[in-house]
């Protein structure tokens, strides 16, 4: 989400590059144990968040999951405050009480992410209900993995969103694996588009390695929801390069073929988008984002830990 003066490819590259570099820095810093928190990295999946969020306004409301770094950054979440949050510092986006799994930035309507699979989906539907009651022009976008569609909460939420024709876009990041469990071992029937259609919600699937097509189809879906056509469902095929949790690779667990992972890394979406730009364009974007990342880490390092009495703060609002 940024000023739309640059080309879509340039905007996507900037967003994806930022996400990639923030997470590479998390990997670099992790052995120092300054980030005392589980991290669920999005490396390999950056295109989905970047492509969808490029069509959103600041007032549009976003719900996501514990694999939420990409989403937070793509929606324009504050980078230094994210890094300070990972460090558990008082200048973090939730003063250190959230960590990596619950990033929040109300100033851009990034509503905060949940670590219990599928639990934020109905909240997103409720936010869409509120927007409709308030006659707002904003829409809700709800991100989740394909694992969340196993949960009853997803089905109940899809039904109600369709019943009330709510302004919400459901974005499923289908990366095939719920931890190490393959979707084919969990999903019966003809797939998620068919399930979405069964609830009366038009659905579309976009294959991996087509970031510009993903960007275009996300734009169409966002426009439909904004027009008041009711919910839309976008199934985005994608792939997580790293382990389910933690900074490492997970080839040692042998739950997915090496060749499958190698092919995904080979077809890196960041490179695909970068190749659409000139070397100079890339260099200028990269330099700017590198500075943001370095500044964010410096900010986190310089910040302090919360005082003891903060442990009692905010149990209740007000």
């Amino acid at each position, binding site marked *: 989400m940024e000023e739309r003066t640059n080309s879509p490819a340039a905007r996507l590259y900037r967003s994806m590059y930022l996400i990639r570099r923030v997470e590479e820095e998390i990997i670099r810093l992790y052995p120092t144990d300054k980030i005392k928190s589980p991290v669920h990295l999005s490396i390999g999946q950056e295109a989905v968040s970047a492509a969808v969020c490029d069509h959103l306004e600041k007032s549009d409301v976003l719900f996501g999951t514990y694999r939420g770094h990409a989403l937070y950054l793509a929606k324009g979440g504050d980078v230094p405050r994210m890094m300070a949050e990972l460090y558990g510092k008082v200048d973090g986006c939730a003063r250190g009480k959230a960590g990596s799994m619950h990033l929040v930035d109300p100033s851009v309507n990034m509503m905060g992410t949940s670590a219990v699979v599928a639990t934020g989906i109905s909240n997103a539907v409720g936010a869409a209900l509120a927007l409709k009651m308030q006659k707002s022009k904003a829409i809700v976008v709800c991100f989740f993995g394909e694992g969340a569609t196993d949960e009853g909460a997803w089905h109940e939420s899809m039904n*109600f969103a369709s019943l009330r024709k709510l302004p919400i876009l459901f974005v499923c990041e289908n990366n095939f694996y719920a931890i190490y469990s393959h979707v084919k071992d969990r999903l019966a029937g003809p797939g998620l588009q068919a399930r979405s259609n069964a609830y009366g919600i038009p659905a579309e699937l976009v294959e991996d390695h087509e970031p510009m097509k993903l960007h275009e189809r996300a734009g169409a879906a966002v426009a439909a929801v904004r027009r008041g056509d009711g919910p839309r469902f976008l199934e985005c095929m994608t792939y997580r390069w790293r382990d389910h949790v933690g900074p490492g690779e997970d080839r040692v667990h042998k739950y997915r073929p090496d060749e499958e992972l190698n092919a995904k890394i080979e077809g890196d979406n960041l490179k695909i988008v970068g190749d659409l730009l000139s070397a100079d364009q890339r260099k200028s974007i990269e330099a700017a984002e590198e500075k943001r990342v370095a500044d964010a880490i410096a900010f986190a390092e310089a910040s302090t830990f919360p005082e003891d009495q903060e442990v009692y703060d905010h149990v209740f609002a007000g």
Partner: protein
Amino acid sequence: MSLRADNRTLTYGEAVFEATRSEMARDPSVFVMGQGVDDARGMFGTTLGLHKEFGSERSFDVPLAEDAMTGVGIGAALMGMRPIQVHQRMDFVLLCMNQIVNMASKMSYMFSGAHKVPLVIRAIIGRSWGQGAQHSQAFHSYFMHIPGLRVVAPTTPHDAKGCLIQAIRDDNPVIMIEHRMLHNVKGVVPPESYEIAYGKARVLSPGKDITIVGISHMALECVRAKHLLEDAGIDAEVIDPVSLSPLDISTIAASVERTGRLLVVDTGWLSCGASSEILSETFERIGERRHFVAKRLGYLPTPCPTTKILENLYYPSPQSIAQATYRLVRGENATAWQPGKVDSAEVAEFRGPF
């Protein structure tokens, strides 16, 4: 309960309706959602016709999807709305636990005040005329366990109105426990708007020999037991906690400090229950300086049987409360005493069906 010059009486159910209606009129962000809230019965009259007065956008039926519907309420609350969710039976609230525990009660803390969840969940406990094992359960202690959640269980129509108004205006999630046996009980309810503060117990009837704490419907049964005990020359103080989380332990402990005896009668099971909490907090507060004897009564440690003959054994009654009180005051070796008979009309006359 303060008696007023006009002395207007309403049933508990009418008091809940009046609180809801006046808050909906006052604040357009207040709305009601729940299975059957807009049907011909209107949730035992507590939501009857609100959809006609305020429109079907503000009082509406929902699919049988407790999990997601709770989440929808939370999501709407995050955006500044003030939903009231209603469950005909508390047993079904078990299907909402993930949203209540993992989301509603944690959002303020987890996001350091970036979000608030002004959500009211009304949960009705059933009893009598064959409600059986799955339409009679009382889970208030589950919710008392959770930081970030307020739990109120008003007994009188007066407190039902004030607690609900307070809950609707609160920026935090509140579980309001209503006992179905209370819905038709009458009491004085001032017509104007008022709030009942959290964490303030109500002394329903003062006394000097023993402190009896009765939760929700059991507070009513405890007042009946108090009258039976007059026959044995025992003067019991009956306290209604009203608010279960936060609990007003000061009022209870001060009473026990005077009487030296505590009986807690819960609308629920004893193990890890509200009665355990009240007893242990009271002990922590005054145990070092004041010796006191204590006992707890509640549901039998079984599921609720459907047949009336067994169901009668399952619940504490004015007689069993009076008997337990007598033993606590006079000691185990005292002369036997049989309490008189008293009618719990709201139980005896209940024909449901729910």
